[in-house]
């Protein structure tokens, strides 16, 4: 038996918990390949879920981290397009077969390993998700809902109490209120379903139900509420008063259309509660028939309203899961699935609600941990994984059950005075950062299964810290508890996942510690990562002051960092109270049978627009009752003004309004309105667009062989090194880092400056991209005796924050000349053409998602196409913050900008010896000043020497090709079909050595012309006309409400620098460089593997950070 298979199948924990890395480091390549074959066999043969999944993660890790660096895997095999298509379609087995076939034929190679790693990893997560889905469906009490495919099979009936109108015409209202939960122990993410199911003894969480309010605004109350009642219309009416969304649903199909509006969570609850069972999806049956069976009378329907009380999104307090549970609980009470119509829930009912909430999260395409519905339970409880026993659906499949056990801590375990002390010590905040926890949860699962030594020790320490936290709670020592939560954050949490912490949080802790000293007892991270919901424990004596100061500190730190860190909202401080009841319900009857006041600001305007006689009996009665309540009840004082605000339109044209500011900004930035109109007209006429970006299909596109380019992956001759070193010593090189972009993939369109994002902790501190590039230049200055001038190109979006940041940081101590090159062009985004959206989503290969997530995304896409048609295809996109409506026009303009803004002219005046530029993207972290490569460029006498790398699976977007006989770069946008890219071995890193004089010649210019603005402008215009214009779709975030975000696809145009290589008169050279030099960090999700594959450590070795 193979060594790794033995580790996986071992019964003895000491053997089972061995790390993969320790074996791989010492194994030969042949041994690793043999192990891969054995693991492949094991994963097919083993009936055990855990063994299969662990084998898959082992295979993924070997191919991602251990094989690519081996000399035996140095080949540059081409990946089969069919394998890629299988991968996108989530047909992982077929993809693996296709990639293994290439490996068998051509031997091991890094590109094939990159594809295998992705396929194995995808299959591992798919296997886990399938298992959780099967378990959720198999839970007793959930199964019947999947069998119910016809109203005739429907077995639920509404409780008679809800159907009795009594003396008034109003149906009673069932109101459920639920606390949210905070996680005192953090748990090391052990509440991820798979961890609980595989390692039940290690899955433990200390979870507290709490009421909340914004500091100083009101008494803490249960943050989420669900309201349910019968209505006298045969429809399902859903409303979210905090999102100000409502829908009157008349068909079953619409119930299952999750992303059509903001009511997806309510729909998930309606389905998961069994009110409309999931088995009815696609049945084509009538919703009215179903409602008639439910209510016992044709003509009646149900209204469900959700309300979140001022808690922003991303609070890390599981607001959405608890809202889902709250809604589910109300629906299950109403249909007798929970015996108690009112009051708190019994344990059996809580477990049922939790199981349905898991189902609801799966249906809605979201996913929380198993502790998230903790708000359904009261007070403080220990939630623990439970081993599966005979009779459980999980038995024989996984070691643990899907649902954990909740052990409530009564006053005998945690004394009332300890609870009081905790309330008086903790300052609970939302730091305001926008976060995506999804990648973190995947990292945790992967690392858990690989048992990497450090992380595994971290997990064991987290488990022991939980015991200590429980002990301190029992003893009532909150100060000691604070030091434990701080230890947990500093130690295990960031050991398991370094990305859980961030610069913003570190800065907050540092300031709080400095200001409060020993009265600050410790930091406490809530949820998946820091920056959103967080806790700070203080001596109760200083808590009131700490609340005030934390608000100020967070706000000031946010302002300092917001240029580079995505914030979704202004930070807030909460007041909170431990909720000792869990989810409870009350029935409001007679005159009290009204919905929450904010519901009426949403609903009344619509009712008032209706003709009086078309109102139903209930609606008339409700309006009368509401009017009466407004006149006489103090709680509804002020409603009249609110209603008028919602009834009458408000002026959009004050000087501070967004459209006004946008117009002013366009004027300031020299927006070319004539060019914009031309683009719009061509777009609408169909002359430009996504499909028109492409080269004619008749183009002859061929791969470039390794002998046609310079191979700089191995050490280059000393001759070149010496040549480069001499030129560097002579000051012949300047660095140009392209920093005009917002990194839309990095923050999903949040519109912050990527260059200023403190993305990773290097040499002990979080570093920004700018700082890293300057640190490399600092090292070069020391090595070669001359500090190269460093230019950061900027745009309308990045210039001011970059300038302010560099000034604040004193250029990170960089001793050489540092210039910003402000952009001279700006575009205004357009509403996309529906045909381009369809082309992008239907014609181009797309990553398929898990079946439920795919349904959600398809529904969202249909809505976005409707949005584009409704808003006017090709119209100006102005419905957002002004800066989010503008776009940079592509990096082709960056070099011309250097000419037009005078930066190059001034630089050459200051340093006439500068003859070449090293130009790279801000996220190409490994682009350092390599004298041998510089020597190669010098010797080649090229205008442009382009660095390329061997194409791995994720390297999409064009590359190097021979097109109609000429070797040149080609953008992915311009390839006649996606498939062609898979025949191209080399990927463009975006890094280029540029001979200044030769490149100026392409513009028809010399150094001497740089002072002549007109000549420069004419040169730029002439060349720009020869460059292709690409139409692209970009995601842009629109923020609203409390931390809510929508993402819209918008159209923009760009010209790209790589097309310079297509100019017949441009002498170009190409060099294949090592991957770590050419790799770009485009997405946050790449960080972890970048860290683990040694790239980060290598980068640290070529940086010299400023030591103030």
């Amino acid at each position, binding site marked *: 038996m193979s060594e790794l298979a033995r580790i996986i199948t071992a019964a003895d924990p000491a053997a089972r918990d061995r790390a993969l890395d320790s074996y791989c480091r010492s194994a030969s390549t042949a041994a690793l390949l043999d192990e891969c074959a054995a693991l492949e066999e094991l994963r097919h043969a083993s009936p055990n879920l855990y063994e299969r999944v662990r084998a898959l993660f082992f295979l993924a890790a070997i191919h991602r981290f251990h094989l690519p660096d081996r000399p035996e895997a140095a080949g540059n095999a081409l990946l089969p397009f069919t394998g890629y298509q299988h991968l996108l379609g989530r047909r992982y087995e077929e993809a693996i077969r296709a990639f293994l076939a290439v490996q068998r034929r051509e031997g091991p190679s890094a590109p094939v390993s990159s594809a295998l790693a992705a396929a194995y990893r995808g299959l591992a997560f798919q296997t886990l998700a399938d298992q959780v889905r099967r378990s959720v469906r198999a839970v*007793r*009490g*959930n199964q*019947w809902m999947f*069998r119910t495919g016809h109203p005739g*099979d*429907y*077995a639920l009936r509404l409780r008679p109490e809800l159907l009795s109108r009594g003396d008034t015409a109003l149906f009673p209202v069932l109101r459920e209120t639920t606390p949210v939960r905070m996680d005192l122990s953090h748990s090391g993410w052990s509440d991820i379903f798979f961890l609980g199911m595989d390692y039940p003894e290690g899955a433990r969480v200390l979870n507290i139900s709490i009421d909340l309010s914004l500091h100083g605004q009101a008494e803490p109350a249960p943050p989420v509420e669900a309201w349910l009642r019968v209505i006298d219309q045969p429809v399902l009416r859903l409303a979210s008063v905090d999102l100000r969304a409502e829908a009157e649903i008349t068909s079953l199909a619409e119930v299952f259309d999750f992303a059509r509006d903001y009511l997806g969570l309510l729909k998930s609850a309606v389905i998961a509660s069994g009110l409309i069972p999931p088995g009815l999806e696609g049945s084509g049956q009538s919703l009215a028939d179903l409602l008639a069976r439910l209510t016992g009378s044709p003509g009646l329907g149900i209204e469900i309203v959700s309300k979140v009380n001022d808690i922003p999104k991303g609070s890390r307090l599981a607001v959405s899961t608890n809202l889902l549970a709250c809604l589910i609980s109300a629906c299950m009470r109403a249909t*007798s*699935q929970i015996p108690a119509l009112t009051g708190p829930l019994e344990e059996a009912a809580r477990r049922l609600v939790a199981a349905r909430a898991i189902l609801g999260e799966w249906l809605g395409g979201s996913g929380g941990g198993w502790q998230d519905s903790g708000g359904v339970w009261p007070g403080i409880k220990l939630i623990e994984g439970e081993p599966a026993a005979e009779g459980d659906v999980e038995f024989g499949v996984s070691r643990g059950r899907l649902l954990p056990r909740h052990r409530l801590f009564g006053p005998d375990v945690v004394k009332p005075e300890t609870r009081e002390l905790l309330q008086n010590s903790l300052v609970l905040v939302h730091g305001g950062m926008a976060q995506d926890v999804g990648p973190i949860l995947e990292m945790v699962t992967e690392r858990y299964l690989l048992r990497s030594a450090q992380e595994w020790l971290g997990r064991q320490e987290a488990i022991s810290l939980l015991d200590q936290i429980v002990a301190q709670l029992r003893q009532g020592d909150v100060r000691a508890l604070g030091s434990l939560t701080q230890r947990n954050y500093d130690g295990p949490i960031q050991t398991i996942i370094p990305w859980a912490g961030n610069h913003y949080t570190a800065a907050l802790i540092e300031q709080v510690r400095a200001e409060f000293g020993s009265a600050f007892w410790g930091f406490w991270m809530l949820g998946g990562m820091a920056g959103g919901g967080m806790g700070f424990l203080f001596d109760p004596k200083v808590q009131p002051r700490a609340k005030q100061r934390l608000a100020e500190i967070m706000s000031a730190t946010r302002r300092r960092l917001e240029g580079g860190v995505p914030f979704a909202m202004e930070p807030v401080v909460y007041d909170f109270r431990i909720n000792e009841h869990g989810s409870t319900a009350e029935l409001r009857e007679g005159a009290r049978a009204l919905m929450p006041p904010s519901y009426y600001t949403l609903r009344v305007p619509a009712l008032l627009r209706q003709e009086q006689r078309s109102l139903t009996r209930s609606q008339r009665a409700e309006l009368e009752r509401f009017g009466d309540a407004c006149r006489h009840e103090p709680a509804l004082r002020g409603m009249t003004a609110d209603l008028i605000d919602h009834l009458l339109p408000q002026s959009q044209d004050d000087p501070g309004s967004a459209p006004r500011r946008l117009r002013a900004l366009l004027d300031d930035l020299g927006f070319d309105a004539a060019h914009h109109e031309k683009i719009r007209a061509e777009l609408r006429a169909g002359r430009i667009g996504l499909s028109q970006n492409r080269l004619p299909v008749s183009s002859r596109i061929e791969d470039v062989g390794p002998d046609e380019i310079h191979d700089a992956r191995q050490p280059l001759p000393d001759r070149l090194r010496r040549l480069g070193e001499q030129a560097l010593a002579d000051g012949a090189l300047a660095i140009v880092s392209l920093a005009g972009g917002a990194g839309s993939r990095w923050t999903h369109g949040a519109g912050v400056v990527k260059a200023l994002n403190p993305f990773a902790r290097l040499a002990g501190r979080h570093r920004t991209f700018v700082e890293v590039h300057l640190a490399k230049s600092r090292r070069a200055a020391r090595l070669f005796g001359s500090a190269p001038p460093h230019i950061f190109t900027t745009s309308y979006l990045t210039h001011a924050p970059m300038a302010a940041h560099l000034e604040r940081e004193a250029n990170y101590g960089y001793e050489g000349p540092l210039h910003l090159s402000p952009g001279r062009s700006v575009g205004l985004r357009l509403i996309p053409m529906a045909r381009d959206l369809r082309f992008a989503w239907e014609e181009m290969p797309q990553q398929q998602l898990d079946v439920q997530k795919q349904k959600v995304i398809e529904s969202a896409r249909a809505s976005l196409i409707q949005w584009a048609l409704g808003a006017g295809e090709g119209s100006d996109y102005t419905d957002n913050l002004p800066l989010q409506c503008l776009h940079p026009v592509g990096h082709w303009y960056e070099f011309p900008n250097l000419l037009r803004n005078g930066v190059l002219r001034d630089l050459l005046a200051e340093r006439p010896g500068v003859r070449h530029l090293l130009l790279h993207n801000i996220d190409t972290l490994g682009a350092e000043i390599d004298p041998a490569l510089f020597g190669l460029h010098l010797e080649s006498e090229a205008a442009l020497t382009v660095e390329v790398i061997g194409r791995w699976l994720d390297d999409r977007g064009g590359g190097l090709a021979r097109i109609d006989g000429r070797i040149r770069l080609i953008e992915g946008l311009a390839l006649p079909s996606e498939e062609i890219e898979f025949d191209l071995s080399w990927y463009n890193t975006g890094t280029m050595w540029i001979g200044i004089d030769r490149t100026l010649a392409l513009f028809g210019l010399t150094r001497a012309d740089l002072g002549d603005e007109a000549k420069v402008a004419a040169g730029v215009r002439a060349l720009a006309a020869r460059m292709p214009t690409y139409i692209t779709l970009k995601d842009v975030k629109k923020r609203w409400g409390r931390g809510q975000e929508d993402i819209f696809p918008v159209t923009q145009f760009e010209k790209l620098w790589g097309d310079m290589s297509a100019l017949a008169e441009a002498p170009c050279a190409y060099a294949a460089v090592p991957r770590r030099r050419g790799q770009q960090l485009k997405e946050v999700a790449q960080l972890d593997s970048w860290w683990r594959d040694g790239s980060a450590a290598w980068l640290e070795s070529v940086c010299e950070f400023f030591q103030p």
Partner: protein
Amino acid sequence: MKIRKAVITAAAKSQRRLPLQNLIDRDGQERSVLAILIEEAVKAQIEEIGVVVWPGDEAAYEQVIPEHAARVRFIPQPAPRGYGHAVWCAREFTAGDPFLHLVSDHLYVGAAAGACASRVVEVAEAERCAVSAVQATHESLLTVYGVVGAQRAGAAGDRYRIETVVEKPTPTEAEQRLVVPGMRAGYYLCFFGIHVLTPAIMDILDETVATSTTRVTLSQALAQVAAKERCLALEMNARRYDVGARYGLLTAQLALALSGRDRDEVLTMLVRLLAVQEHVDRV
């Protein structure tokens, strides 16, 4: 154990008129629902029958069963306190004996007239324990029945040892507590409307009636009996018809007719009805 007594409950507000409805029985005779039920009991060798009625209904009932007057005793239920309470009202009549119990809003159509009650009595006497007739019923009908949670008992294949009883459960509760091994998914053992009950039921109902302020269900009492002594569920092949349901009386009549002497006549009538309707639709 010999079963000589039967209790028929007919006092519920919504059911009071049902036993008085006339139908044509399998033999082509016009009889009331109550008379058909009494004959079901008589064929099971029952000698005395107690009918629990709403006070004042006795005379009307007496009129529709003149041939059984001698063996029937009417027992008033003074207050509408539920099905369990109605059964409890017959405690003096049963006087510590086991008894057959039928509900007055159901009719049974088996292989032969009276075969259903006879079968239940026969099994109860052989097994010397309480027996409830049950039928595998789809979960969409759970809202109208008492449902048993049970394990198979004995080799006969039609008997189950009752572990619990729940009145009108939701499918969620049924799936958690009432799944019977071997039963098709989504099907549960629901009461058929015929039971043989032992004196233990009256002891439990005594206590419940004395302490409960809400309606007293029979299912809850049966669950308690099952926890104390052996109770069997007997799966029936026959069909039950709820005459109180929408078109229930019509369906029961058709079922009786199609299983009796006038089968051909009724079938012809139905075919003619369909043909005429078809013709009218075309015109």
